[in-house]
């Protein structure tokens, strides 16, 4: 096993374990922290795939901004008590069976594909660097970039209007 394979298995195990702990955790604050672990593992996968810009953006945007926003809301509303009613165990069973069935069907459909088993991902190249991504983003994708800034403006206005007290 090479170093990158060992890192791949370690990061995969970390991501799956973090996701499971996030789902089954009782305290929402711990769930947020486990989700941060998952995001760091996925950023590690991006670095393994030589997508460095996306790795840094993933850490800054997801683990930095979005998760802090979640923690802020949870602590602002005092939701860190373990007050979720666990009244029906059948709900857990039905949800787990549904998710497991989805996983089973998709894995069974893709498992025997020989084409995917021989396709290797490249670990080199310069497509993930900020230089090439930035030049394509500001040349060919400049209109979606500007549209996304309008989306951010409307999301900001919407958040303020929804969160406003009164009326």
């Amino acid at each position, binding site marked *: 096993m090479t170093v990158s394979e060992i890192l791949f298995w370690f990061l995969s195990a970390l991501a*799956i374990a973090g996701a499971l702990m996030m789902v089954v955790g009782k305290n929402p604050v711990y769930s947020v922290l486990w989700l941060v672990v998952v995001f760091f593992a996925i950023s590690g996968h991006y670095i393994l795939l030589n997508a460095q810009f996306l790795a840094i953006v993933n850490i800054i945007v997801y683990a930095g901004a979005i998760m802090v926003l979640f923690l802020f809301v949870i602590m602002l509303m005092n*939701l860190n008590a373990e007050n979720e009613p666990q009244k029906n165990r059948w709900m857990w069973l039905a949800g787990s069976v549904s998710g497991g069935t989805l996983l089973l069907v998709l894995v069974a459909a*893709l498992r025997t594909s020989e084409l995917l088993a021989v396709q290797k991902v490249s670990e080199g190249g*310069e497509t993930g660097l900020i230089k090439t991504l930035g030049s394509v983003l500001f040349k060919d994708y400049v209109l979606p970039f500007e549209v996304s800034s309008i989306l951010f403006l409307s*999301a900001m206005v919407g958040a303020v209007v*929804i969160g406003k007290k009164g009326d």
Partner: protein
Amino acid sequence: MPVNYYIFLSLTLFSIGVAGVLTRRNAIIIFMCIELMLNSVNLLLVAFSKMHFGNVELSMLNSNVGIEAQLFVFFIMVVAAAEVSVGLAIIVMMYRNIHSVDVNFLNRLKH
């Protein structure tokens, strides 16, 4: 690394997210599961981008093939950030009105 390892990892994370949305009743944790699903799709897009790059890497040096997938991931992150800001505002509003974030209390849209 063959690409199907990445496919199975993404599928596992996505299914955990689906199971979380179906089982949990806390609105914030449901929201976090949706973020997990978005991230698994992002990982799959990047893996396919690098797979596509690896296919043409031998024939063309310095190619920019597969760069669109990484830009799509970038735009997915942008949309997810906007979605989170509005969604958390809705959750705060809901907590202010009904003093709970349990989605079982929100089945009254028909009234």
